[in-house]
């Protein structure tokens, strides 16, 4: 017996060993050979190389060498990194495969004190110090045939979703294509203010979207005081254009009619300028808004002056500065635009994630306009227009929400204008006062107009985080993508657009948000009335106590008045209690929903199962006993 058990044990152990070896062998081979085969079932095919990337890779001019520095032996020391590293390696191999030989990949393990490590460090790669004393390198250096070098110092796990974009951008930069030249005229300090703080705004570096633009295009910043546009510019971006002279406006008019493309970012109310207005003596109230209606109304489209749009269902939630309860509330003029508000058939806005607009305007379009007007972004049908006057000074959000009347129509906030248009200067050049020979009266224009400028400010879409001495930028909205898509598209290059936009970043609980907004609408009015009542009572009590003191400071009150005061104090307490109830109710509906869902999931199915099980088992047991008895009986006979 003993020897049999021992034999058994040996054979079990042995077979387990063989099995382990087989398992390792099969899976090592499969991860080497089969790693690129996968079925991406996500809605936006997030994990597959986009068609645009493939197209880009197949049309490269330059030969590019990618050196992937990865400390393989140290990977296992940080959880989660080794699987990310293999995904990065997979993607790099796929780039190599798709590039028709233009991209070659080298994988380098920068061991401590090796030459490889020196090269890595020399290119700015950072080694993460590990517990064991060694360093983890996880970065990329790309070089082209003309000594151009671009690097990704470290692949941060948080940027995983943007991996493809970061890699494609690096390759595009190395490809040495002449970057398209974009002219930019801006009255906002997007290049930064040289470190000086203005008013309440401390952040004064270059705006992130501008840095991103510079990565992809050659941006020439033009002064608004120029008289003529440079000849080599084919795309012009006007950002919050103010004080444009008639001569320059004529130039822009002719520029557009001559087939060049134009991007206009206008604003009925620039949050940025409104904030620094007091601290800026050179600015006036009029500078806070911008439009180019003098020019665009000729095409059939104009920014509705003096109007700011609010959209309650997609309002951003803020905490009012003077609200001691710290509760968040809907601010209708700061909008969190969803795919539903964006044109899914236009390449600029299709599959864009959420975009944040702040105090934006709307465009009015003439029905008989001759160029084709394609709305790119529209409000929901629940939007309404506010006067800009309601936004000077301190804004009471509760007042904005009170008696919110939906307009019932979807208003355009971004429009593509394309086709035949007429000049806004039928008399010709305003300077020369007569028709010059190369004056164009008509032409095909290619314009994109956006009724907000604040969406470009970092504050509405960028979050900065310090990590390993670097500042990491996380986009919390697709604002940067929107503007860069627009410029890409206008300058005739749609390649990076498909790579950049990968769809929704967040999928919120739509139902919960709706309940929250409905509840707030119901209760907020009630709350406001109660608060007003409370204030009245408190004012009355203060008045009363101060007016009923005699010269010695003592109060003289009759019994009747005492009773009156008691009654008033009681109602004050009751109102405070009602206020607390209102605030409590706001959260109650959502809590109820959650509880109901938990009950269904947690209790319903298990209970049904228990019931079913009890039934099946008792009936079944008896049934099987009989069958077994029959079988045994048949055996015996």
């Amino acid at each position, binding site marked *: 017996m003993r020897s049999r058990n021992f034999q*058994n044990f040996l*054979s*079990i152990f042995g*077979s*387990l060993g063989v*099995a382990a070896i*087989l*398992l*390792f062998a*099969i*899976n*090592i081979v*499969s*991860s080497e050979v*089969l*790693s690129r*085969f*996968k*079925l*991406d*079932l*996500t*809605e*936006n095919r*997030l*994990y597959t190389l986009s068609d645009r990337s493939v197209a880009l890779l197949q049309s490269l001019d330059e030969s590019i060498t990618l050196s992937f520095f990865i400390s393989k*032996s140290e990977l*296992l*020391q940080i*959880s989660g990194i*080794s*699987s990310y590293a293999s995904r990065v390696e997979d993607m790099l191999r796929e780039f190599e495969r798709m590039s028709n030989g233009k991209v070659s990949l080298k994988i380098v393990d920068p061991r401590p004190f090796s030459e490889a490590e020196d090269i890595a460090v020399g290119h700015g790669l950072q080694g993460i110090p590990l517990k064991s004393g060694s360093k983890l390198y996880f970065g990329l250096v790309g070089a082209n045939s003309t000594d151009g070098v671009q690097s990704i110092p470290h692949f941060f796990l948080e940027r995983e979703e943007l991996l493809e974009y970061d890699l494609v951008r690096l390759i595009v930069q190395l490809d040495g294509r002449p970057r398209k030249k974009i002219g930019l005229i801006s009255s906002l300090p997007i290049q930064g203010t040289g470190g000086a703080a203005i008013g309440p705004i401390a952040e004064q570096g270059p705006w992130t979207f501008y840095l991103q633009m510079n990565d992809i295009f050659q941006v020439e910043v033009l002064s608004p005081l120029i008289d003529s546009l440079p000849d080599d510019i084919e795309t012009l971006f006007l950002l919050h254009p103010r004080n444009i002279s008639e001569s320059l406006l004529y130039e822009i008019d002719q520029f557009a009619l001559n087939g060049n493309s134009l991007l206009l970012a206008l604003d009925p109310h620039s949050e940025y300028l409104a904030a620094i207005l007091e601290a800026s003596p050179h600015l006036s109230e009029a500078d806070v808004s911008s439009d180019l209606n003098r020019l665009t109304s000729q095409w059939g489209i104009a920014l509705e002056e003096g109007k700011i749009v609010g959209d309650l269902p997609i309002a951003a939630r803020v905490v009012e500065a003077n609200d001691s309860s710290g509760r968040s509330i809907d601010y209708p003029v700061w909008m969190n635009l969803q795919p539903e508000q964006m044109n899914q058939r236009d390449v600029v806005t299709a599959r864009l994630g959420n975009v944040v607009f702040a105090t934006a305007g709307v465009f009015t379009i003439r029905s008989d306009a001759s160029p084709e007007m394609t709305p790119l972004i529209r409000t929901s049908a629940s939007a309404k227009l506010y006067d800009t006057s309601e936004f000077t000074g301190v804004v009471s959000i509760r007042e904005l929400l009170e008696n919110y009347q939906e307009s019932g129509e979807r208003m355009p906030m971004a429009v593509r204008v394309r086709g035949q248009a007429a000049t806004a200067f039928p008399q010709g050049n305003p300077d020369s006062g007569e028709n010059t020979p190369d004056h164009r009266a008509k032409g095909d224009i290619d314009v994109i107009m956006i009724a907000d400028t604040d969406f470009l400010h970092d504050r509405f879409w960028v979050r900065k985080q310090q990590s390993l001495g670097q500042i990491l930028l996380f986009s919390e909205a697709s604002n940067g993508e929107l503007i860069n898509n627009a410029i890409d598209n206008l300058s005739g290059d749609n390649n990076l657009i498909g790579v950049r936009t990968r769809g929704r970043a*967040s*999928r*919120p*609980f*739509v*139902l*919960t948000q709706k309940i929250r907004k409905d509840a707030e609408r119901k209760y907020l009015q009630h709350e406001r009335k109660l608060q007003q009542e409370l204030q009245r009572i408190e004012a009355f009590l203060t008045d009363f106590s101060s007016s009923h003191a005699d010269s010695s400071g003592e109060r003289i009150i009759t019994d009747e008045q005492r009773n009156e005061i008691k009654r008033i104090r009681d109602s004050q307490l009751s109102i405070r209690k009602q206020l607390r109830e209102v605030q409590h109710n706001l959260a109650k509906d959502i809590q109820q929903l*959650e509880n109901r*869902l*938990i009950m*269904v*999931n*947690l209790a*319903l*199915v*298990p209970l049904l*199962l*228990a019931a*079913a*099980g*009890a039934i*099946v*088992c008792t009936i*079944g*047991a008896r049934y*099987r006993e009989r069958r077994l008895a029959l079988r045994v009986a048949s055996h015996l006979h």
Partner: protein
Amino acid sequence: MGMTAWLAIFRRELADYFYTPIAYVFLIIFLTLNSVLTFYVGGFFELEQADLTAFFSFHPWLYLVLAPALGMRLWAEESKTGTIQTLLTLPVSAFSAVFGKFLASWAFAAFALALTAPVWITVNYLGVPDNGAILAGYIGSLLMAGSYLSISCWASALSQNQVVAFVLGIVVGLFLTAGDITLIQDLLAPVLPQTLLEAIAGLSFLNHFEQMAKGVLTLSGVVLFVSVVAIFMYLNVAAVSANKKYAMN
């Protein structure tokens, strides 16, 4: 009997599952744990994100512990009640018996997984999730369940004692589940060479399943799960054959 032997065994075992109270206990525990972990530990309502990543993240650990419970009775109980003698002397190949039993446990696990549909419905009720990604997660979860079950079936065939089968199933499963976490790596580092350490890390179920839960069915992940099933079924057949020979003698 030949080809359809395994079908008969499959049917009998599957029916047996439904007639035993312990299966319902298992189902209730599995579903309850899934819900509790998703809603309370996974922060489903706090995050307010319409996806099931929290839900899927617990599956490997749930299977690690519960799959042995499903599989352990398949062979060990037969040994105890003596019916194994009957089974082994029948003109049924070891392969049929193993395959039939394994398939029954897998079908039952599929049933349990299907019963988690309320969570999927809930997340669609609350928002607009990526249903393609969720589908990939379910497919991956089913494959992974098969892997864990094949291990526990084998463990069950090795020992007459259900508890031993249970523990063995968990231990082997653990190495395959989380081979790349620092705890296991540190544990094995003094004993095994670097290449083996990396190989074990590469087998990590957690890693491969994580990809599937995100929506990508990787071929290497599918190969991993299927190869585990194949190898442990083979071991299972070997163990049963040995027992068979002994029983025949």
